[in-house]
Structures are given as structure tokens and as C-alpha cells.
């Protein structure tokens, strides 16, 4: 029996080594292969945030005339050493540019980028590229707060309609957030400011789920918020848990509505969903891959908003208030032209006072972020730095 085991083990090893040897023969092909793009994804197409990345990079690769076989997608890669393993694996497969899409992937991508100086690594949502200052590591993100503001306007108009109709008298808004840091704080604040531009007396509660994707926790948070009296909800978490819960309550006769995230929630919540702010990742991917193909340097930080087509809101649901579409067009035009700034300091206060200076964003202490009468979000770096808790919002 022992002998048989030894033989089996030996066989496994031999075949393994043979496979290694074979790969070396293929080495020539890998280098002559035109151009390969690799991407490390936190989830798969069943999860809205990753789905929008997959769509984006597929469109970008097609637009640049690359074939589908030149794009290698790695699904369900967690935020640990597997991310580093995968980055190295993609590098060994001959990818010239390697992306990763989740916040926690960043330090592993940086580790790999130090070992493969000839390959460009680009991380979405991270905030370290400027600080690390590596020649082959960049961050990219969208100015998603612009789309969140616009979705807030949609929500605000619905809230106003409900109040005008006498269905609601307390303008209570709720938000299901993932983690209590700048990316989420920036997002909910932008949404809230959008709502308040229509209903000035609105106020908001935020519940954190401490997960990017947790169907049950998101549904539970939505139910808690509705039980507290919230009538308009939104989310910065990636499942359909919250929209599902709100749809159920809506069907039960409650006047409650929700703004989703990433993808249209109309199939999950046909009555309750108003719209979803979404990232149009294709824009960033196309820009970056194009630069790498041309052999030009990739900027340390790339952030695209409405002006470049990097963000959008999904199709409006049937439940939106009258005149919403026209209002949305106006607001988007104003953001594009620079007439409207989401974080203009005269629209929000902290402790009852307008801020004139802020240099305490976590990790960027000492960097002044307020000038020209606004908080300059996604300006110093591509990722969010707005981590100020403003009046009118309560984190539960």
C-alpha cells in the first residue's frame, strides 16, 4: 500500500513537471502574442459592481480592436494573497496591463508591480498610486459622486411629490452603506445633497453592513431604516438585498422607494426602484489600455465623470415624479459645464458652520482640499477623500 502511494505521488509530480516543461516551450508564443490584458475581479457577473467592470473592459477591448482571447478575466479573487498570486500569474501569461477592481486588492497589486517593472498595473478605487510613486502603478476611478448627486435629485423629486400628495410628512431618507470610509461617505453625502437640493428639510440615516456584498444584511438594514420611518432609500453596497426589501414593503402598500447602485434595479424592484447611479468603466479602460498599447506613460490617477462619460444613471423607473427626466438633463448639463459643483461649500455645514478649509482626510492629513468655494473631490487623487460627516446625516 505504501509503495502504491509513493508511486502515485511520484506520478503526480512527474506529470506536473512535464506540464511545466511544456509551458516553457510555449514561452515563445506568449511573447509574440500581440497584446494581452488581464483583470482581477472580486466577484463574477452575478454581482452588480463586478458585472459593470466586465461589461466595461469587454467593450473597451473590442473598441480597441483586440480579440476576446487577448483579455483574461479572473473571477472571484478575494482580497488576500490570492490577489497577488493571480497578478503574478497574469504577468507570467504575458499580460502587458493588469487591472484589479476591489479596494482591498491594492496592496497585493503594488507588491506584484514592484516585481514586474515592465508591466503596467492599474487599480480601481485605490488611493496609493500617488504616494507610492511607482512608475508602473496607477489608480483609476470615476467621479461617481456626480451620478449619485443626480440620483439624489431623482429621489428628492419623488420625495417632494409624496409630500405634496400628502402621503408623507416626514422627509426621512435612509442609506445602506458598506464600510465607514471616504468612498462611502463621499457617496452618501453626494446623494443626500442631491435630495436636499429639492427638499431642503430632508435628513438621512446611514446603516453600515461592513461588507460589499451581503444580501441578507443589506435587506435587514433596509428594513430597519424603513421601520424608522425612511421613505426614500439608497445604497452603496453591491447586492439587490435592499431593493428587494423595499419592493416588498412597497407592494405591501407603503410609499417607499429606492435608488440602487451599479445596475438598474427595475427587474428586482419594478415599482420601488427609481434609478441607479452607475460607473461607465469602459471609458477608463479604453483610455488606459490605449496608452499602454501606444507605449505612453499612464497617469498616476485617472478619474472620469459626466464630462468624459465615465458615470451615468440607469433608465428611470415608472415611479419617478413628473418632470424628472427634464430636471436630470438640466443638472447633468450644469455638472458638465462646471456651473454646478456637487460639494460646493455653501450647500452644507458641519456643526452649523460652513467649512473654509479641510486638510484632515485620512491618509492625506495636511493636504488642503477646499478651495474655489468647494471640496475638490477626486482632484488630488482619483479616489474619494471626502470623509466629512455633515449636518443632517446620522450614522447609526
Amino acid at each position, binding site marked *: *500500500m505504501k509503495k*502504491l*502511494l509513493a508511486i*502515485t*505521488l511520484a506520478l*503526480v509530480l512527474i*506529470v*506536473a513537471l512535464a*506540464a*511545466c516543461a511544456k*509551458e516553457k516551450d510555449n514561452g515563445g508564443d506568449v511573447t509574440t502574442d500581440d497584446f494581452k490584458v488581464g483583470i482581477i475581479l472580486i466577484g*463574477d*457577473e*452575478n454581482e452588480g459592481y463586478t458585472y459593470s467592470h466586465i461589461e466595461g473592459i469587454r467593450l473597451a477591448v473590442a473598441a480597441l480592436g483586440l480579440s476576446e482571447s487577448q483579455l*483574461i*478575466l*479572473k*473571477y*472571484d*479573487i*478575494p*482580497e*488576500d*494573497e490570492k490577489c497577488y*498570486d*493571480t497578478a*503574478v*500569474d497574469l504577468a*507570467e501569461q504575458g499580460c502587458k496591463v493588469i487591472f484589479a477592481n476591489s*479596494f*482591498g486588492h*491594492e*496592496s*497585493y497589486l*503594488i*507588491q506584484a508591480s514592484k516585481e514586474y517593472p515592465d508591466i503596467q498595473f492599474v487599480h480601481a478605487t485605490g*488611493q496609493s498610486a500617488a504616494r507610492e510613486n511607482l512608475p508602473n502603478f496607477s489608480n483609476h476611478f470615476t467621479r461617481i459622486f456626480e451620478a449619485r448627486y443626480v440620483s439624489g435629485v431623482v429621489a428628492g423629486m419623488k420625495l417632494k411629490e409624496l409630500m405634496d400628495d400628502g402621503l408623507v410628512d416626514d422627509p426621512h431618507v435612509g442609506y445602506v452603506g458598506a*464600510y*465607514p*470610509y*471616504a468612498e*462611502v*461617505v463621499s457617496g452618501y453625502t453626494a446623494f443626500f445633497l442631491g435630495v436636499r437640493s429639492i427638499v431642503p428639510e430632508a435628513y438621512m440615516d446611514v446603516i453600515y453592513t*461592513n461588507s460589499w456584498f451581503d444580501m441578507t444584511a443589506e435587506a435587514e438594514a433596509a428594513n430597519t431604516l424603513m421601520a424608522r420611518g425612511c421613505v426614500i432609500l439608497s445604497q452603496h453596497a453591491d447586492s439587490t438585498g435592499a431593493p428587494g426589501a423595499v419592493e416588498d414593503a412597497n407592494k405591501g402598500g407603503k410609499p417607499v422607494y429606492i435608488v440602487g447602485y451599479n445596475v438598474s434595479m427595475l427587474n428586482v424592484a419594478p415599482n420601488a426602484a427609481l434609478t441607479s447611479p452607475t460607473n461607465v468603466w469602459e471609458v477608463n479602460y479604453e483610455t488606459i489600455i490605449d496608452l499602454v498599447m501606444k507605449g505612453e506613460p499612464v497617469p498616476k490617477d485617472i478619474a472620469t465623470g459626466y464630462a468624459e462619460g465615465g458615470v451615468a444613471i440607469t433608465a428611470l423607473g415608472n415611479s419617478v415624479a413628473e418632470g424628472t427626466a427634464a430636471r436630470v438633463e438640466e443638472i447633468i448639463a450644469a455638472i458638465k459645464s462646471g456651473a454646478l459643483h456637487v460639494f460646493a461649500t455653501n450647500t452644507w455645514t458641519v456643526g452649523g458652520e460652513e467649512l473654509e478649509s479641510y486638510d484632515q482626510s*485620512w*491618509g492625506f492629513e495636511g493636504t488642503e482640499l477646499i478651495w474655489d468655494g468647494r471640496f475638490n473631490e477626486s482632484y488630488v487623487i482619483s479616489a474619494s477623500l471626502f*470623509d466629512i460627516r455633515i449636518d443632517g446625516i446620522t450614522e447609526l
Partner: protein
Amino acid sequence: MKQKLKEHKEPFVRIAKRVKIEWWKAWGIRGIALVGALLVCAAIIYAVVALNPLQVYKAMFEGAFGTNKRLWVTIRDMMMLLCIGVGLAPAFKMRFWNIGAEGQILAGAIASAACMIYLGTLPGILLLLVMFLCSAVAGGLWGLFPGVFKAKWNTNETLFTLMMNYIALQLVAFFVALWENPRGSNKVGIINPNTRAGWFPPLFGQDYALNVILVLALAAIMFLYLKYSKQGYEIAVVGESENTARYAGIRVPSVVIRTMTISGAVCGIAGFLVVSGASHTISISSAGGRGFTAIIVAWLAKFNTFVMILIAGLLVFLEKGAIEIASRFDLNNFVSQMIMGILLFFIIGCEFFIQYELKFRDKKHKEAQA
């Protein structure tokens, strides 16, 4: 009619315990199970996604062993599972159902991460040694508690060790919040990315050579300890029958406590491997279910450390292969989980046919009766 009812009918098939089975028969059954599993997987793959199953298997193989780097990652993860399996072996041999490896790994991982963060300035070797000891102590403590409770008050160790997992999980959540970077993100990120303090140094040009050396050494020591030491013999006797052990003058409580501490300590060392030798961070998924997977490893290997290498290899191979086929054929991870499930079903299921044999109704015998 009446007569027919009276007649005692022998069942078509009945099950009988085998007295003994030749080794070639046992391994033959296992071989047939493996081939059967592969055939069923192939049929399902072809039926569901119309892909050539051979190509899928080839892709799985390349995913695990296709390049030098992949081979080493596979070896690294195999060693991790083996280490936990080695930790579980003494407890299971004593019939102490330690399903708390997950928590013991996390306890060791917290200790290692704490050393990396607070003692990062110590010289390299010394720091690694301190981390090794701290993680063994932390894991040992996590094993000691259920051991003491079992020995003193005969608490149910299955529940106790399981619940210790959740305590460890909450502790990790606490420390992640304490050490998080950036604040609020609930992630610690890579610890000491620039100084690499507390990371396993590369040996012979291989990042993971130290993992292999450490785990194989542990496995060899555990093998000798269980097979040839007096304590190892005590564990076997307590496992077979506590009364016999007591009759032979073995102090059962102290054997239970000692063995559980050792079991926890080795699992704690696995936590050290996770933090220092692989991920260089800590999160609530640091153990990642490996504490449970290792139970399968230990059981299937019947606690033989060397067979464990083989089983651990098979499981890690399946995991790595899964990632590759998801990427190459655009199947998502569920397909690989199906394959894993089918394989494990057959492999674990075939043990039944090794323990028992099916006796079919004897035709001749029946005719003779008639």
C-alpha cells in the same frame, strides 16, 4: 398463494461488514471511485455547457501545475492544509472532535500579525522565532480551553471547539478594526510592505521554500510522536477506550488537555504560516474554511501524515483548477464547486464499500431451495 406469502424471501442485495480487505482491493475500489467521479463530472460538463471534458480537465491541471509559479502556489496551499491536518491528527486519534481548527488558526494569525505590527523592528530571524512561538501559544490556548473543560467537566468538545471559532472570528474583527488601513475600510492591507519585517524570507530563490521545510518537519515530528512516543501511545489508547486507558494507569484528563494543547498549537502555527508565509495580512477570512477542509484531509488519510500530503494535494489541485476553468471557459466558480462536490462524494462514498461488502442474492442457492 398462501404458501408464497409464508416463504421467506432473501433480499436481492444485503450489506455485510468486511472482516478484512486486501490492500489492492481497497485501492482498486478507490481507483474505480475516482474514475467514476471523473466520468460523472465529464457527463455533466458536457450536458450543461457542451465543452470537451478532457479539455476542462487539462485546463484544471494547467491551472494547478501549468507554470513554475503556479506549481509553487499549489505547493504552498497544500502545505497549509497539511499543517492543519497534522494539527488535527492527534486530537482525532484520541477521538476528540476538534472542529475548532479555524479558530486556532485565527488565534495564531492574530498573534503573528500583532508581532509584525508591534515588534517590526526586531532583527529578522529573532522576529520570526518570536512570531512562531507566540502563534503556537495563542493556538495552544485556543485548544487548551476546550481540553480543560472536557477533562474536568466532560463538556461536549464538538460544540465547545466550534463555538471557540466564533470567538476567534470576533477577536479578529476587533483587531482588524484596530489596525485597519485606511481607517474605516475594514482592511489591514499588507503589513510592513516596504521593510518586509516578519515575512518569510526566500530560500534557494523560492518565496515559499520555508513553508515547505517547516510543514514537512512538523509532519515528520508528528508522525514519529504519534507512532513511537509513549505519549503517542497514550493518545491511541485513550482514543480506543477510556476505560482501558484508566485501567492501564493512564491519567486520561492530563492526556486530553496535553493533546488538545498540542493540536491547537500546531493549528496556531498554521495561522503563522498564513500571515507570515502567504498573505502578510489578517482578515476574518484568513482561515478561509481551511480548518474544516483539513478535517476531510485528516479523516481520509486516516491520520497518516504521508497520505495527508496526497489528499491535501488533491483538494488544492481542485481549487486551483477551478479558478483556471472559470477564467478560461468563462464558467463561474459554481462549476468547479460541482466538480469538487462530485469528486468528494465518490471518494468519501467509496470508503463504504471498503468497510462493507454487498452480497447479492445467490441464484444457485435459491434454486436449490426451490
